[in-house]
């Protein structure tokens, strides 16, 4: 009886524990099957989150390491719905807020303050306020502003390149934003990494061959010249013939890329193709010299006017006869016409093409113009003649500058480099002999010593150059009221290390010739650039 009584108590205790344990197990199974997924996701939501692996846009540097486009990190502070006044006052104590609590709409997410610094962000986080949110933002700055805006372009607030090199090299500069799943603590701080959902790709910096100091000189003189001549547009291209790199590309009108109200202007250096006028006469001459149709010292009869297909082409004065180099020196229309007719249609076209006209340029830029040449089969003599003095074909300032660099590079055509990070070797090919290049340079030196380009002379240096004046084609007619004035010069001295092209567009009828307008602009730029690069005339030492 005692044993039974004792066993009964033991039985009861065991039964109780078995039932209790069974109840717990049953409840566990019920929860697991009925609410398992919901509870698991609710738990994950409390201690896991997906966060963006942000990538800061790369910097664009010039050849000296000066930043031309740079991203600065900041934080935007937002109020979430339900933010209380006492919490806002705490914020007020640690950062200088521009808004008061009354200015904030606390019924929805609203911006309190933009561009907080890292220090301010830390102070805000230390307050551990629930109903606020900080968003990391990147602001793009362009220290050179309008001086280089048409080349560099700009990117939007979403860090996407919208214009210029910012657009061309967007994938390199932007990288790729990724995402990852992380474990976080009770305060929302990241505790551990769980998995990468989308891998990020780091952004890269871009190094370009532009020298910001030379760019400044080019832009400053360009804008002064445009304003003093009441013109509306212009360009400067500066090429380093030693390294085959671009040193400056100035284009006006420009815009301030730092301003949200910017009015985008095209990069005229690459896009504005125009009839170059007399500036291409030496290029036509190079074709004739290369094919031994003429020698540089040959004498030609140059009457004051000549009639071609019933059209009269005339010079400013009676020369009688001129040596071939003097035709370039005096920029004789009649002489250029005779050279073009001697060369004929096929040679003229083939020659211009070898110098890069009507072909795309090899610069990675969102859009580039590459001009055109009149190549119709049944070309009349007058059409061939006009090709000789720069009409009937169009080219961009960059194409003209690269074509002239052939004379500095002993007859070899080079594609000039703008982006230093591009590893592919630049295209180059000999297109005329060194002898022809030297002969053309001889003619070009005479332009600045005795010819139309005297105002381009930089004291103490020899410059090989050529002027160009173009009447602008408007509505299918040439109007003698609007002109484009150009000058391209190679120097200093026999080293020929720098090619500088300048043009001023939409000049009025008062002063418009290449010799009067573009040549002095070249002289100012060249004086500063030569001094900056360490070329000094002997008198200075």
């Amino acid at each position, binding site marked *: 009886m005692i044993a039974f009584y004792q066993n009964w108590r033991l039985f009861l205790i065991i039964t109780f524990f078995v039932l209790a344990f069974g109840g717990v197990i049953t409840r566990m199974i019920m929860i697991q099957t009925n609410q398992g997924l919901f509870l698991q996701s609710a738990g994950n939501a409390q201690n896991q989150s997906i966060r963006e692996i942000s990538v*800061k846009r790369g*910097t664009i540097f010039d050849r000296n390491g*000066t*930043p031309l486009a*740079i*991203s*600065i*990190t900041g934080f935007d502070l937002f109020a979430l719905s339900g933010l209380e006044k006492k919490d806002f006052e705490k914020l007020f104590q640690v950062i200088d807020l521009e808004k008061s609590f009354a200015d904030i709409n606390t019924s929805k997410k609203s911006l309190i303050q933009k561009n907080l610094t*890292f220090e301010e962000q830390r102070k805000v986080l230390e307050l551990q306020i629930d109903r606020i949110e900080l968003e990391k933002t990147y602001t793009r*700055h362009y*220290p050179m502003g309008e001086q280089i805006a048409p080349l560099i372009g700009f990117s939007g607030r979403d860090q996407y390149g919208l214009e210029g090199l910012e657009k061309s090299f967007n994938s390199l500069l932007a990288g790729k934003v990724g995402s990852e799943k992380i474990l976080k603590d009770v305060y929302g*701080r*990241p*505790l*551990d*990494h769980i998995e990468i959902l989308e891998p990020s790709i780091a952004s890269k910096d871009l190094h370009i061959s532009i020298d*910001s*100091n030379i760019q*400044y*000189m080019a832009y*400053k003189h360009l804008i002064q010249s445009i304003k003093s001549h009441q013109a509306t547009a212009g360009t400067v291209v500066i090429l380093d013939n030693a390294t085959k790199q671009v040193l400056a590309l100035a284009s006006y009108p420009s815009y301030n890329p730092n301003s949200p109200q910017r009015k985008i202007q095209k990069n005229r250096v690459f896009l504005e193709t125009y009839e170059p006028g007399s500036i291409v006469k030496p290029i036509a001459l190079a074709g004739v010299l290369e094919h031994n149709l003429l020698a540089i010292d040959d004498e030609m009869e140059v009457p004051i006017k000549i009639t071609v297909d019933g059209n009269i082409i005339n010079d400013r004065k009676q020369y009688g006869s001129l040596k071939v180099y003097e035709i370039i020196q005096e920029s004789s229309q009649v002489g250029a016409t005779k050279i073009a007719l001697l060369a004929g249609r096929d040679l003229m076209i083939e020659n211009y093409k070898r110098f890069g006209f009507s072909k795309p340029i090899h610069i990675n830029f969102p859009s580039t113009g590459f001009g055109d040449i009149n190549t119709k089969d049944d070309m009349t003599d007058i059409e061939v003649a006009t090709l000789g003095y720069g009409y009937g074909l169009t080219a961009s300032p960059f194409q003209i500058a690269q074509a002239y660099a052939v004379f500095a590079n002993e007859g070899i055509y080079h594609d000039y480099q703008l982006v230093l990070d591009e590893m592919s070797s630049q295209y180059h090919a000999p297109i005329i002999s060194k002898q022809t290049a030297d002969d053309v340079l001889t003619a070009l030196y005479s332009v600045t010593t005795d010819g139309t380009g005297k105002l381009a002379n930089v*004291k*103490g240096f020899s410059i090989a150059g050529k002027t160009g004046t173009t009447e602008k084609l408007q509505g299918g007619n040439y109007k003698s009221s609007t002109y484009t004035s150009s000058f391209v010069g190679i120097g200093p001295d026999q080293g020929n290390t720098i090619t500088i092209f300048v043009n001023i567009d939409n000049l009025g009828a008062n002063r418009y010739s290449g010799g009067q307008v573009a040549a002095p602009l070249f002289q100012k730029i060249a004086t500063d650039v030569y001094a900056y690069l360490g070329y000094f005339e002997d*008198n*200075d030492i």
Partner: protein
Amino acid sequence: MMNSKFLFLSIITIQLICIFFLAINLILVRWEIRENFALQANLIEQNEELTNQHNQLLTEQFFLDSPARIEKIAKQQLGMVQKKPLEL
């Protein structure tokens, strides 16, 4: 018979000790991983802050060093003029 029972119990005991030791170590390693993760996150943020400062300083240096500013100071504050060519 006695020896094999003792051996069996010994193996079980050693395994239990190992499991306990490994469990403790797992906790410690996980803790260390999380500490390092937090440290890494801090270092990434510090790096970004320092890069930011570097960028701001570069921009400031560019402004202070810019030929436009130097030219302005030279002309307006120091009264300097452009050198004229020497006439011999």
